[in-house]
Each structure stands twice: as structure tokens, then as C-alpha cells.
């Protein structure tokens, strides 16, 4: 598994994680924030692409508390009408205030069955 480092300002405003659906499939996601060096889950959210509201979540404050924590996004993708070579893309966008800190993309080809994918980001105070 690839864990991408995302740097943030420990003294800055709230960090937000947003799940962005880029392709027209049914997507269900689970977002977990793992405590640094522990198996404790600090925050857990679930959602899907059924409604048009933003799928964005504020991480705990103060921002510095998130140093070393890992953000995990588990994805399940289902195409309503799968076509050969139909692609999916779901992004996990991490931002702080008005600044985008980083973006991770889950991309692949849908199958006739459920497809799964996972994104990992390690938050690094800098």
C-alpha cells in the first residue's frame, strides 16, 4: 500500500478532507483517521455519491494534533450499466483554509461486479 505524505501548517486553520467523484458511477466510501503509531481510530465517516451535497469533513482541531495521523479512504465502486473499458476516478482532496494541500486519486476500470480501492495519506506538520 502506498501512503502519500501531505504537509500542513500545524498552526493553521482546520484541515478538511473531501471525497470528490469524477465519474458517473455509484460510489460508497468510508473515511478513517488513524492515530499516529496506534490502532485507535480518531474519526470515522461514511457516505456515498447518492446526494449532491459536499462529502467534505473537518479533521479535529487544533490542526497540530493531526501530525503523524493517517487518513484512509476505502472505496466501493459500482457501475449502473458497465461498459467495456469504463473508467472510474475518485479523488481525496486535503485542504487547509483556502489552500489545497494535496490530492490522491483512485483510478481504474470498473468490472461487472463491485470494484474496491483504497487511498492513504499521512499528515505531516511542517
Amino acid at each position: 500500500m502506498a501512503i502519500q505524505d501531505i504537509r500542513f501548517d500545524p498552526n493553521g486553520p482546520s484541515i478538511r478532507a473531501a471525497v470528490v467523484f469524477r465519474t458517473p458511477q455509484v460510489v460508497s466510501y468510508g473515511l478513517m483517521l488513524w492515530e499516529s503509531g496506534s490502532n485507535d481510530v480518531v474519526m470515522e465517516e461514511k457516505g456515498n455519491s447518492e446526494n449532491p451535497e459536499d462529502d467534505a469533513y473537518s479533521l479535529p482541531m487544533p490542526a497540530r494534533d493531526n501530525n503523524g495521523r493517517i487518513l484512509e479512504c476505502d472505496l466501493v465502486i459500482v457501475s449502473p450499466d458497465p461498459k467495456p473499458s469504463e473508467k472510474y476516478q475518485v479523488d481525496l482532496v486535503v485542504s487547509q483554509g483556502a489552500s489545497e494541500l494535496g490530492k490522491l486519486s483512485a483510478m481504474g476500470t470498473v468490472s461487472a461486479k463491485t470494484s474496491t480501492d483504497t487511498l492513504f495519506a499521512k499528515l505531516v506538520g511542517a
Partner: protein
Amino acid sequence: MRAYWGRALIVALAVAGMPRAGQADLSDSLKAARLDLAVPQAPAFELLDVNPDAILRPGTFRELAVGLGSGDLRQASVEFAPVPLFAGHQSLTEYQRSRLWNTWRVSLATQTPEGGAVSMSAGLRVSIIDRSDPRMDRAFLHQLYGAADRVRDAMLEANKRLRGNPALFEAKKQGEKDEIQSQINAAVAAVATAEDARIDSLREAQRQSHWNAPILELAFAGVGTSADSSFKALHVARYAAWLTGGLPAGQRGQVLAGAQAGLVPDVNGALKRSQGAASVRAYAGSNEVKGFLGGNLRWANGTLPVQAAHFGMELRLVPGIWAEINAGITREGSTDAKWTSGVRLRYATPEERESKVSAL
């Protein structure tokens, strides 16, 4: 078992049952009757008779630019959906908000015979109404979301319980990681297998219940010719337009009506000769097997009108492949009506499957 033998019999008939000698003209009339109900996927190609193997179908603007940039523009054919191509990625809710715009398909083609004039064709196809679109069926989608949510819950639970913190997991020995990962895969698969079967059933039920849903499709195209590749002396050589609509007739029936009309050059080369066709067909049955009854009228300035009536049966062998048995009578002007019959296999390409009408 009975259904299996029925399908096998129809396949055998379709493979062996080509039209008999002397019936080619009648078969052409029946073929024309069928075609009149199909709005072409790429109307520009319909007018220029483009080789389907050479068509560029870009999914991104970059693919379009690269494809056109590397080819011979005097012998090019391209088909694309402009809105997704230029607007970029769309989520399911964005697709639902702009379905009509998403159905626009542009087709462009050029042909230049050795030493001949350059022909350029442009076409547009729009699916104005398509109530069979699974991405617009909110009840169906809600059930898919339920299935996806259950797999997601199993995935979250397995990752939390069996794997834990991803960084701590990565620090383990490879053998231990493999063992944990196989346990996670098994735990998720236990749920996903059942949900996949449920999704298959939901998709099939959606197809069965919407095969006769309302549709309305429109296309038009024009061909221009020019003596040279500068297109300075471009003049319109031909126009054509197609319209097809369908409505359910009860739960197990459908009525489709289609029309096409066009202008072509007369004997003097003036764009004054009109031609057209109208067709109607009624279906009864299900998406798997249905009978049909229909009629067709085709006319052109200076020729006798051709009338045809036909009936038959369609059987879906597997998704995208149909067998059809048909019979009918054709009459040209006031001549005696002639009888014909035929069996054929039909398939839909992935692009054609996007169009319900084209698949009929």
C-alpha cells in the same frame, strides 16, 4: 432446457437461413423497414458510408487532438460526445443534471477519392428522452447504493479489526502482511459475492422493466463537397434527418415510430430531390423474447413509393446479441405484393448499446 433448445434452433436457422435467390430486392425492402426505426449512432458516417474500423472515438480532448493531428484529414472519421469531452469528468449527480447535453454525439468525416472531389460530412445525434437509462433510474440506483454501502461496511470493519493502522501494518514482516491481507480479502469477499449477485439481479430486473420505456431520438447530417481541399468552393450535396420515438403499450408492449427525410441532388445536380421513409412497429413480449408487427412506407421524387408490412419474433440470446425471424409483404407502386421471409443474427457494439433505438 426448453429455452436452450429454442435458442439453439433459432441460431441454427439464423446461420443457415440466408435469403433465398430471387428475394434480395424484397429482403432489402425489409431491411429498409427496420433501418427506418433506428436513428443512426453517427449520422455523418451514414451519409458517407465510412469504414467502421477507421473511426476515431476519443474519450478525452487530448485523444481527439492527437488522433486528428496524426491522421490524414482528407480521409478522417471521428465521433465524440462534446460535453463530456470538453467539460471533463462528471459525477453521477452531475450526469443526471445534464443528461440531455451528455447524449449529444457529433460525427465528422471526410473522404477524398484519388483525383476526386473532397467530401465532408457532419452529423449530430441527440437522445431527447430515454427513460430506460439506468443512471437516471433513482429507485434502481438507491438499491445499488445499498449494496455498495454493505460492501463498504464490510471493508471498513475488516480493515479496522484485522489490519489496523496502515503504518503499523506496513512495518510487519511480508508473510504476516500476506496472511492478514488474505483474511481481509476473504472477509470482504464473503459480503461482496452476495452483493454482486444481488447487483446482477437488480440490473437484469431494471432491463426487463424498462425495455419499453419512452424514448425520443433525433439526428441530422449534411454532406458538402469541394473540388479541392481548401473547401473554398464547398457546396452542400445532401441533407438527411432522422426521428424515432417509442412509448410503452401496457407492461409488455411497445410502439415505435420512426421517420427519416432528406434532400439529394436531382438529375441536374440541384438539391431538389426529396426522399423519405416512415415506419411503425409494435412489440409485445419481454426484453428476452418478443413478437412484432410493423409497416413501412418509403418514397422519393420520381420513383414509385414502396410499402411494406412485416411481422416476426426477436429473441435475445445473450446481452447484445439477438436472433430475429421475420416475414412480410412488399409492394412497389401499384404492382402485386410480394412475400418474403428471413432469419438473422444481430449484435450491438458497445457504442450502439448506449442507444436503445439502435439496438432494436
